[in-house]
């Protein structure tokens, strides 16, 4: 229980309003921060040309993140958060969503990343009357056409705003190119190398906490020896092959995980 409560405190510190996304939100900014952001940025109006490039950028960001981290998790370089009420700045019914790719240059995991041009990209959007829900894994689901409801956007790259569709396209194309290179790099790795990389990635989840405590976060020699020469567990091998989950496993999954989370199993999109 001590450990569970410790994790609970971490979540409450990060997202005090709705730490488990029970109410469908994931709020990392407080009201003052939201006000500062809405005032500081030069918001660009949504238009077809810009939207096309922003959407491609989002696809490139999702892809490079997946290529580097092999999954999408808040501890793995990206956090989606909101919706923040911005009606004072933008009118009734408006909200802000942040797609914050805060670390697409994880040199602690991949040495070659030190040559990457960009470390962080945050794509902020102002929407009107958007129905959206966040789950506790940091994903969002919207039954609305987000493109149509987008009023303004802002793209922040390493703290500087990228204002034009041309600049956004340049960043997007660069990230797409790096994505393909990264996938090829991973494909060339041996099974043993892949296992060690995954182990390092898993240990990196709490890197910041370990660094603050002055503890080496990297897997120990004993941990590496433990997985050396071993095959994957049968269940995970099947998962990797994309096996469709059975009803029995859905029931077990819901018992272990949050039973409200239907989106990972049911065929319907939640209301």
């Amino acid at each position, binding site marked *: 229980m001590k450990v569970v409560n410790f994790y609970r405190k971490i979540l409450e510190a990060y997202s005090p309003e709705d730490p488990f996304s029970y109410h469908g939100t994931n709020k990392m900014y407080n009201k003052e921060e939201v006000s500062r952001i809405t005032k500081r940025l030069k918001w660009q109006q949504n238009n077809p040309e810009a939207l096309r490039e922003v959407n491609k950028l989002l696809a490139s960001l999702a*892809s490079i993140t*997946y290529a580097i981290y092999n999954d999408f998790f808040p501890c793995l370089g990206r956090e989606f958060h909101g919706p923040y009420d911005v009606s004072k700045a933008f009118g009734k019914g408006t909200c802000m969503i942040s797609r914050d790719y805060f670390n697409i240059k994880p040199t602690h995991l991949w040495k070659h990343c030190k040559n990457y041009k960009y470390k962080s990209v945050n794509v902020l959007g102002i929407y009107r009357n958007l129905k959206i829900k966040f789950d506790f894994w940091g994903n969002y689901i919207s*039954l609305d056409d987000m493109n149509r409801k987008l009023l303004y956007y802002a793209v922040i790259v390493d703290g500087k705003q990228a204002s034009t569709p041309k600049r956004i396209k340049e960043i997007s194309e660069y990230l797409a190119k790096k*994505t393909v290179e990264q996938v090829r790099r991973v494909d060339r790795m041996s099974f043993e190398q892949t296992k060690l990389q995954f182990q390092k990635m898993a240990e990196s989840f709490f890197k910041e906490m370990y660094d603050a405590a002055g503890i080496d976060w990297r897997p120990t020699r004993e941990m590496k020896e433990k997985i050396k020469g071993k095959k994957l567990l049968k269940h995970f091998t099947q998962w990797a092959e994309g096996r469709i989950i059975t009803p029995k496993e859905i029931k077990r999954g819901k018992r272990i995980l949050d039973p409200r989370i239907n*989106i990972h199993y049911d*065929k319907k999109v939640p209301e």
Partner: protein
Amino acid sequence: MSVIVKGIPASQGKVRGKVIIVKTQKDYKKVKEGDILVTRHTDPSMVLIMQRAAAIVTDQGGLTSHAAVVSREMGTPCIVGTKNGTKKLKDKQVIEVDADKGTVNTVG
């Protein structure tokens, strides 16, 4: 119009287009702007063809799969977890992807 395959609607929208079945990286160059990308599952190396596709249909995956997440980011209609889309759909077949309902339908 009749339903050819069904799956999980991952990113909403409805669109018509020509199917391109992608099985290996050699098939990537076949996907042109506006085609319907049909594949077992997507991976990050497909980012450029996913950006070209008018819709994406996969055999595997759920709402948090790579195809689902990237499609939602782009606002591209996407149906995942069809189980047999790559078998039931044919290359260059013109279809309608109804990602609101999670169905791929014949046209005409």
